[in-house]
């Protein structure tokens, strides 16, 4: 039997039972639409997550924190719980150990300012995120500047690109326009550091600082940071905490390990973890996100697959009914010279046809539903953006090119598989019995 004749015969047989074919195909439509919507939702979520993760940080950087043993609970005041053997502090000798790991380019300790501080510029103020780094060049962290230099000196600071947006006018009268973010490059700012004694008396220390560099946008932590030499942060901490810090004994609160090649980051991080420290790479985060979305797609796809399974039972039932009704027709086909394979092909073709039609409908419905979701999502996002600023994902559901193709092939296969058993029964009918069937 010629393939084109088979197609025509199958199409003819399907059109002579339009209502039943349509009702059976509805199940496939629902199943396919579910798969399309759910997979496109998962793809959309994944895409917007990757969009937001853009600039998650330099992939050659590993953040290392000390381990205080147990659950890693830090009890404050430099004290630690649990046995000393579990405690791994970021002492200078530990940093030397990191430097000895192959693939490590540099190890830079960093320290936060431990007291509250305020930065003033003209009439404006802000609460700074001061980070002291143990290098005199911010470029060692992988950052570059828009303007000025990445180098740090005593009395100079390098700021992230969004820092100026944190300035506000404390004396702004209600209803008046807030002032625009100041241009701080090459400007002198005043930093006020506060210290309180046990009776709550406040002491202030004023420091004049010059902004010698503004970093390029990274969409990471650097954007909001104010970098200062570690030594200076240490002196301020010693003043505000009334104690001396010995980094050989107490260790730093964090270290940045920079590797030469981003591909080595995970490996180096694993070695540092094996040494008892807590190491964190952007890769591990990305990997987690990826796994999450793969799981999401599998779950969503699974829901659709269950819907398709139900549809498959419907197709099998319809085909079985149809074959019963056409038993004499099958007998006739065999009498006029149809082989078992011809009969099998005709009925498999009809089942596949129902799956194919349902798949087409399902893709159309799924596509429409995805568009509807995107419209709803964009309305919702627009509302949210009004409150939170930009950076929200633009789409919720994305239909990758492979999805409709996959859905069509899959639904056709589902149809074929569900029709397999009834079609085999039709093909192997004894001609004389089929012809005598009432």
């Amino acid at each position, binding site marked *: *039997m*010629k393939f084109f*004749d088979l197609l025509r*015969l199958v199409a*003819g*047989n399907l059109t*002579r039972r339009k209502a039943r074919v349509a009702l059976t195909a509805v199940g496939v439509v629902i199943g396919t639409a579910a798969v399309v919507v759910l997979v496109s939702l998962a793809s959309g979520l994944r895409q917007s997550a990757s969009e937001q993760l853009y600039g998650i940080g330099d992939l050659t950087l590993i953040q290392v924190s000390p381990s205080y043993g147990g659950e890693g609970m830090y009890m404050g005041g430099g004290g630690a719980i649990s046995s000393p053997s579990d405690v791994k502090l970021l002492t200078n000798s530990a940093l030397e150990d990191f430097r000895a790991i192959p693939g490590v380019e540099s190890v830079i300790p960093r320290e936060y300012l431990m007291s509250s501080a305020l930065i003033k510029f003209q009439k404006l103020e802000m609460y700074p995120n001061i980070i002291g780094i143990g290098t005199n060049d911010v470029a060692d962290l992988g950052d570059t500047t828009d303007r000025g230099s990445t180098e740090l000196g005593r009395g100079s600071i390098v700021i992230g690109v969004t820092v100026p947006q944190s300035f506000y006018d404390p004396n702004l009268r209600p209803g008046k326009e807030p002032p625009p973010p100041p241009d701080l490059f090459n400007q002198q700012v005043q930093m006020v550091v506060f210290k309180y004694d046990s009776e709550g008396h406040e002491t202030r220390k004023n420091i004049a600082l010059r902004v010698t560099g503004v970093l390029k946008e990274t969409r990471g932590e650097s954007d909001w940071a104010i970098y200062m030499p570690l030594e200076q942060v240490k002196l301020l901490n010693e003043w505000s905490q009334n104690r001396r810090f010995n980094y050989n004994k107490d260790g730093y609160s964090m270290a940045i390990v920079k590797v030469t090649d981003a591909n080595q980051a995970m490996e180096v991080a694993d070695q540092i973890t094996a040494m008892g420290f807590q190491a964190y790479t952007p890769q591990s985060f990305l990997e987690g996100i990826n796994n999450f979305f793969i799981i999401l797609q599998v779950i969503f796809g699974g829901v659709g697959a269950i819907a398709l399974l139900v549809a498959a039972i419907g197709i099998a039932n319809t085909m079985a009914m149809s074959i019963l009704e056409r038993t*004499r*027709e099958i*007998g*006739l*086909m*065999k*009498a*006029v*010279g*149809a*082989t*078992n*394979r*011809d009969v099998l092909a005709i009925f498999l073709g009809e089942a596949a046809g129902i799956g194919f039609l349902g798949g087409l409908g399902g893709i159309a419905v799924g596509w429409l539903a995805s568009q509807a979701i995107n419209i709803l999502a964009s309305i919702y996002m627009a509302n949210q953006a009004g409150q939170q600023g930009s950076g929200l994902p633009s789409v919720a559901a994305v239909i990758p090119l492979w999805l409709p193709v996959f859905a069509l092939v899959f639904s056709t296969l589902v149809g074929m598989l569900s029709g397999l058993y009834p079609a085999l029964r039709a093909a192997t009918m*004894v*001609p*004389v019995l089929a*012809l005598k069937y009432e």
Partner: protein
Amino acid sequence: MGGQVVRALDNVDVEIEEGTFTVVMGPSGSGKSTLLYLLGGLDRATSGEISIEGERLDQMDENALALFRRRTMGFVFQSFNLIPSMDALENVGFPMQFAGTNAKQRKIRAQELLAQVGLENRADHRPSELSGGQQQRVAIARALVNAPKLILADEPTGNLDTSSGSAVMRVLSDLHKAGRTVLVVTHDPRMTHFATHRIYLLDGRVVGEAEYESAALEALQIE
């Protein structure tokens, strides 16, 4: 089914020569259809030999039987067995699809055969739009489509009134005159006028005309 063994045909030995018109007569249940289906390779006997032109049907597998039917045999059934969704032309051309004939040739051949059975102006009519006699003539045209040597007809006039039945008989007789071998199962005595050979069946056995006549008479007296 149950333990009862039914011998639809028992110890039947018949020979049908090429170019003959054979009528198989017998009361209902005597095994006429069984004989026809066995000869047509649509049924299998539990034992015995069936050969057509030296080929052993009882030794062929399903696929070989299908191909053999396609080449050699045309069937006509009591209930026509036309496909309701196809018009007369498509019904006649249907078997040629399995032979792989292309659509154009199918159409030409089907038109030719419809003309041969006197239905050239009914080509686009569906079975539901045709009388019983016309449907049976479409079915005969379909049986002829692959130019078979042997035409097997199972009570072809059984569902027809007298005049349509006569028309169908004439068509079958014409086929015989044109050189084909025709075997018709019937209990319509008029059919015997056309026959060159007769086979009488009683309870699955082949009997002579005399025995058959006396059995028929006996049956009449009981009624």
